């Protein structure tokens, strides 16, 4: 999961990575007291989990408290691409001599951490890689070895930067790599990494991504995630250990299955027919009747959805359980949306019997492609 800038800054501070002094506010009442320790000018930055906040007016400067109040009130509550600004990070402005780029990513190709460094910072690194590929240095880190001092030396020397920054860069790399490992990060990015007028390296912005699978051992990141405004259905699904995936905003077909590979296959086949999938739900393991019922309830509470394709395949899945779940859902919800069910597994015949007994818009199909053909045949009929 991606951390917001203010949370990344919190981690940087924890690892004594040099950043600008700053405060976080979520309402204007706090502003004056919290800002009392800051030296103006400052910059106020909207905290949202979406890019392009600058262009949207979410980043503004202030030379004094009055101006700060003004810009803060204009940014807090602002809607940036559908994300409401609930938090504002206010940091002291810095006299900048030069902007670099520095990140550590978990590289899928080498299957290890990789440092990316550029003496051109402040812009999209992908852009720099296209326009000036020789300016983007990449160097793998062997996780069994960690950061050795020849790494920062190589980065500075190869990119023609002044070796005078060696100690600072080594220290910085050491710290962000430590954080990368200890916080189960897949990305720690400092862009720009700036040189201040007094020749100090300072992290002026921070982007951190933490591995979702590791959140159980990262309690403070888990807490941060809980605090985030997220799609209500995602949260609701998470409570049942389902994965709810929003797809096309105007899609009217939903897919439910017990494995992400199968979900992708379903979406592909449905899309091939020109239909649009609006949401998908991965049940994970343990498809009991109760869980099936809850899953159907959650996905159908997306009002755009008109047709639901349930596709469950697994040698140890009991089809009668699945069918009973569908029956429970249809009876409780009393909605007339179309539910197509395809399953393979133990007790398939018994499951089919149960499906046939349901009073509602439920259709049993045999096979994945057959199911999609049926969806295609029925689209627009509701």
């Amino acid at each position: 999961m991606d951390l917001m800038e203010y949370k990344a800054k919190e981690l940087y501070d924890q690892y004594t990575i040099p950043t600008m002094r700053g405060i976080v506010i979520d309402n204007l009442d706090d502003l004056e007291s919290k800002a009392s320790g800051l030296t103006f000018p400052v910059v106020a930055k909207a905290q949202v989990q979406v890019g392009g906040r600058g262009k949207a007016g979410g980043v503004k400067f202030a030379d004094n408290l009055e101006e700060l109040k003004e810009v803060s009130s204009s940014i807090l509550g602002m809607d940036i691409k559908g994300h409401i600004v609930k938090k504002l990070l206010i940091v002291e402005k810095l006299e900048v001599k030069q902007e670099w780029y520095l990140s550590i990513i978990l590289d899928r190709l080498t299957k290890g951490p990789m440092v990316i460094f550029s003496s051109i910072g402040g812009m999209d690194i992908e852009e720099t890689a296209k326009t000036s590929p020789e300016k983007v240095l990449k160097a793998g880190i062997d996780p069994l070895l960690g950061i050795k001092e020849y790494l920062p030396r190589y980065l500075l020397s190869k990119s023609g930067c002044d070796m005078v920054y060696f100690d600072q860069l080594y220290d910085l790399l050491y710290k962000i790599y430590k954080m990368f490992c200890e916080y189960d990060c897949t990305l720690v990015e400092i862009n720009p990494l700036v040189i201040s007028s007094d020749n100090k390296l300072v992290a002026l912005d921070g982007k951190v991504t933490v591995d979702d699978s590791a959140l159980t051992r990262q309690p403070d990141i888990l807490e941060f995630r809980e605090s985030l405004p997220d799609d209500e259905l995602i949260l609701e699904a998470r409570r049942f250990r389902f994965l709810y995936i929003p797809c096309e905003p105007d899609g009217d077909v939903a897919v439910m299955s017990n494995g992400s590979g199968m979900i992708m296959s379903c979406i592909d086949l449905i899309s091939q027919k020109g239909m649009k999938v609006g949401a998908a739900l991965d049940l994970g393991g343990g498809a009991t009747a109760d869980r099936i019922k809850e899953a159907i309830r959650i996905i159908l509470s997306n009002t755009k959805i008109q047709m639901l394709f349930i596709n469950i395949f697994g040698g140890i899945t009991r089809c009668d359980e699945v069918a009973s779940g569908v029956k429970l859902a249809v009876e409780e919800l009393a909605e007339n949306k179309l539910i197509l069910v395809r399953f393979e597994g133990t007790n398939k015949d018994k499951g089919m019997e149960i499906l046939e007994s349901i009073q509602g818009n439920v259709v049993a199909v045999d096979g994945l492609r057959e199911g999609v053909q049926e969806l295609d045949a029925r689209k627009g009929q509701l």
Partner: protein
Amino acid sequence: MSILIDENTRLIVQGITGREGTFHTEQMLEYGTKVVAGVTPGKGGQEVLGVPVFNTVKEAVEATDANTSVIFVPAKFTAPGVYEAMDAGLKLVLTIAEHVPVHDMMNVYHRAKKMDVRVIGPNSFGVISPGKAKAGFMAHRIFSPGNVGIMSRSATNCYETVFMMTNRGIGQSTCVGNGGDMIPGSTFVDTLPLFEADPETKVIVMIGEIGGSEEELAAEYIKKYVTKPVIALIAGKNAPKGRSMGHAGAIVGADGTGSAENKEKKLKEAGVLIADSTQNIIEILETIPGTK
């Protein structure tokens, strides 16, 4: 023959006394797999389904000459389990758990490569050589012996494919669950040389998906070294961009890396037959003479 596991496999189940471990040990025994030992710390000396339980993998190996381990423990104990198995000298270790932290697997991956250990998974159903042995939790009834080698990032797409194959009388030499994680212990390029060398395997089916570069690397390898026909499916063409599809590995970058288009392009250039659905895999298989 077959690859990775067969009638000579002497399997250890790490976590054998757990609910999952015991259940699948029973399944594996029923299938004829030689499960020679189980390991659960503190339960050494007990027996599970007639299989002796040891406190450590090293003791299990010393006592039973086991050569392979399958690890049925929760995600957070998976990496320590792999280390223990590697340190006890095992050269093939299968991991099953979902949601293993990617840093754990990164460290396991680098260590395994350097110790010349083959790790399969995590987030994998395991490996099955139909009619000979299974190590993992796959629903073995849908599998049948034959000459098609399968390797898959997705369990469900593999099951679906195998189910249809078996219904049409086409069997499998070995099915390998590479698993859906961002950093799997083994990838397609690790498995391809084995299938290429296996005299029993006539055709190779590769079930890939969006995200990562495993299929691109496989394409390069196939171009250079693989003489057998290869059929590939890339799932997730229409998955929403930038969103993890549950498989941590199935995510397309903002810059388009890991897209299905690129993978299919590279695979086609390598002479791979592209299937657009699991059913299409079977249709293509049926056009290849000698497939059974």
